[in-house]
């Protein structure tokens, strides 16, 4: 048996740690953006339906299977799943539950480090007096690791390493001495910060401090129901997807936390409490911060445009400028509260990502907690470095897509099938209800067995074959055009356009347009821009960077370019190279963890302790 004898300090600590695991950047940055892009108030209906039919069942499944595996001394998914069915395949399915945590932590800690840095920048007044454009550029400069915004060389890298070091140190203190203490401070604090910002957002008044609309205009926009969107599969898939990300299901961290529970202790009430706490932070607080403030200052059209590039851009490129409108003192308070709540949301999640890998090494290789924490920190740092150095080449997005999106859906689907159909729902139901402090509605037997797996199959299939423009009417046996972000589309590099080779001697225009400017910015960075008007009258621009010492520009201002036309000549390493390298790196990590699981299994066999 394992020598891992950690335990939770208190039940409240466990629930707050689980809630902290679930509450993350997505609650404040992703949810409002998804809601805006998917019908405003009507989005909440599929979202809540997904929570009831997929989120809660998965919480029950993960909490109870974690506690079940913990009875046999397992604290990570490979052997938790193996304890539920002896077939060899399950321990390799369980590899997802270590892999996704490590890979997500690698880029998640990078975002977390941005929040640390932005708290400091808010307090020292780095954004004071900057225009909106300058605040947006500040973020671009921050991501360019060679540019320093505080005087610290390689600032983004320094904060990333500091962030990893902090996570590692807390993880080395253990469950009750580290993670639980952070959750008990972090979760209440982020709720307090969230309430403060939500009150500021909702009470925003047009004409005061530069606001052009009341805060309620943003709420109107977010909550006005558009019931026609309910018939759109895209909205349902987006809602189901959001439930995944927000609850941290399909990751293996919930099973790990729950594996430290004894068999007589409750999982049903704990799961519901942590799950609904996450919903409170996401729906009640998350909807009342960014959108009301951003729409109050920028108007609906501008915010919709900004949401098209995701929540991160809105949070880091725009919010500091908006807080500046409240004056130097309040902007420092609001900025540090906003990035502080993001930091606490982030760190309580990244700590949860550390525990499955650590639990595995402690259980199977008898590593100490400190050794395991150090190894986690080191692996995450090494794996995270490509996301920093090649952020603009799409490595960050590759990690997010394959480890932070696809892996979660695949793992959740397989664990739901294991729990309901292989382990068997009769046994599963006993696990969910054993020691329960609430009566779990019987309807969940039916939901867990039939509805949840089917919903997960639909979500996975939807992601796999998503059609272009999310036009599901085009899907037929004769074929259809795939969405660039569908799994099959991603595998085929559908979004790469004409620059779809790793290396090339020319770079090709990715969209038609007129070259309207050729310019450089300090730091010897050279660009040219093309612009074109689409059918709706909207001007689409595209900016290309080139390096004069390596590339010879063959277009000039005023030229009309077509897609696929050569725009500069010289040695080019295209984005697809970095994307494929990122994929290979992730695959290598997955295979290495699989190898460790194999070695662990062989050791168990040798020691005759695999009689689970």
């Amino acid at each position, binding site marked *: 048996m394992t020598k891992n004898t950690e335990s*939770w300090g208190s*039940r*409240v600590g466990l629930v707050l740690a689980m809630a902290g695991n679930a509450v993350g950047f997505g609650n404040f940055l992703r949810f409002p953006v998804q809601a805006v892009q998917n019908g405003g108030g009507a989005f909440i209906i599929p979202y809540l339906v997904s929570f009831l039919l997929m989120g809660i069942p998965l919480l029950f499944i993960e909490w109870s299977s974690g506690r079940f595996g913990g009875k046999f001394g397992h604290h990570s998914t490979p052997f938790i799943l193996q304890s539920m069915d002896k077939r060899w395949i399950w321990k390799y399915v369980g590899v997802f539950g270590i892999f996704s945590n490590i890979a997500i932590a690698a880029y998640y800690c990078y975002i977390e480090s941005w929040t640390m840095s932005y708290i400091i920048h808010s307090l020292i007044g780095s954004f004071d007096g900057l225009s909106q454009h300058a605040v947006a550029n500040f973020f671009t400069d921050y991501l360019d690791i060679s540019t320093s915004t505080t005087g610290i060389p390689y600032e983004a890298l320094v904060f990333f390493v500091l962030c990893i070091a902090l996570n590692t140190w807390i993880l080395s203190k253990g469950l009750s001495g580290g993670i639980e203490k952070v959750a008990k401070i972090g979760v209440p604090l982020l709720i307090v910060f969230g309430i403060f910002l939500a009150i500021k957002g909702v009470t925003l008044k047009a004409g005061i401090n530069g606001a052009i609309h009341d805060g309620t205009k943003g*709420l109107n926009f977010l909550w006005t129901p558009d019931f026609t969107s309910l018939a759109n599969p895209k909205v349902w898939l987006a809602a189901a997807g959001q439930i995944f990300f927000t609850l941290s299901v399909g990751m293996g961290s919930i099973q790990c936390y729950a594996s430290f529970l004894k068999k007589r202790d409750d999982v049903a009430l704990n799961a519901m409490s942590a799950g609904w706490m996450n919903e409170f932070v996401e729906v009640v607080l998350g909807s009342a911060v960014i959108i009301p403030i951003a729409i109050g200052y920028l108007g609906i059209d501008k915010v919709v445009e900004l949401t098209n590039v995701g929540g991160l851009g809105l949070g880091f490129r725009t919010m500091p400028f908006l807080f500046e409108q409240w004056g130097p003192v309040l902007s420092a308070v609001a900025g540090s509260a906003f990035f502080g709540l993001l930091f606490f949301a982030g760190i309580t999640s990244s700590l949860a990502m550390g525990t499955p890998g650590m639990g595995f090494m402690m259980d199977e290789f008898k590593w100490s907690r400190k050794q395991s924490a150090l190894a986690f920190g080191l692996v995450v740092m090494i794996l995270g470095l490509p996301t920093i150095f090649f952020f603009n080449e799409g490595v960050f997005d590759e990690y997010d897509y394959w480890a932070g999106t696809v892996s979660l859906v695949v793992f959740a689907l397989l664990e739901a099938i294991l729990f309901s159909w292989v382990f068997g729902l009769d046994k599963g139901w006993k696990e969910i209800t054993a020691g329960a402090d609430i009566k779990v509605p019987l309807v969940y037997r039916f939901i867990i067995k039939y509805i949840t797996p089917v919903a997960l199959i639909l979500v996975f299939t939807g992601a796999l074959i998503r059609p272009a423009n999310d036009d599901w009417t085009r899907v037929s046996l004769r074929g259809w055009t795939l969405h660039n972000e569908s799994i099959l589309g991603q595998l085929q590099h559908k979004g790469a356009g004409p620059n779809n080779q790793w290396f090339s001697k020319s770079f090709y225009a990715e969209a038609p347009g007129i070259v309207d400017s050729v310019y450089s910015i300090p730091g010897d960075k050279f660009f040219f821009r093309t612009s074109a008007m689409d059918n709706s009258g909207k001007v689409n621009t595209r900016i290309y960077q080139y390096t004069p010492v390596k590339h010879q520009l063959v277009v000039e201002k005023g030229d009309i370019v077509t897609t696929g036309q050569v725009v500069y000549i010289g040695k080019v390493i295209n984005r697809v190279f970095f994307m494929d390298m990122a994929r290979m790196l992730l695959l290598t990590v997955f295979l290495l963890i699989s190898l460790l699981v194999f070695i662990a299994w062989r050791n168990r066999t040798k020691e005759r302790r695999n009689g689970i």
Partner: protein
Amino acid sequence: MNTPAFVMMITVELVITFLTVWFFYKVLTIKPKPEPDSFSENDDDPR
């Protein structure tokens, strides 16, 4: 705010807030299980 948006927001937020508070209240107030339980802070508590 327009009425449908207001009704939607208040209904959803009240339901979520109520359930969050109710479940957390139960966590705080339900009598702990007899030892040995999963939690170390109450190990010295008389039961």
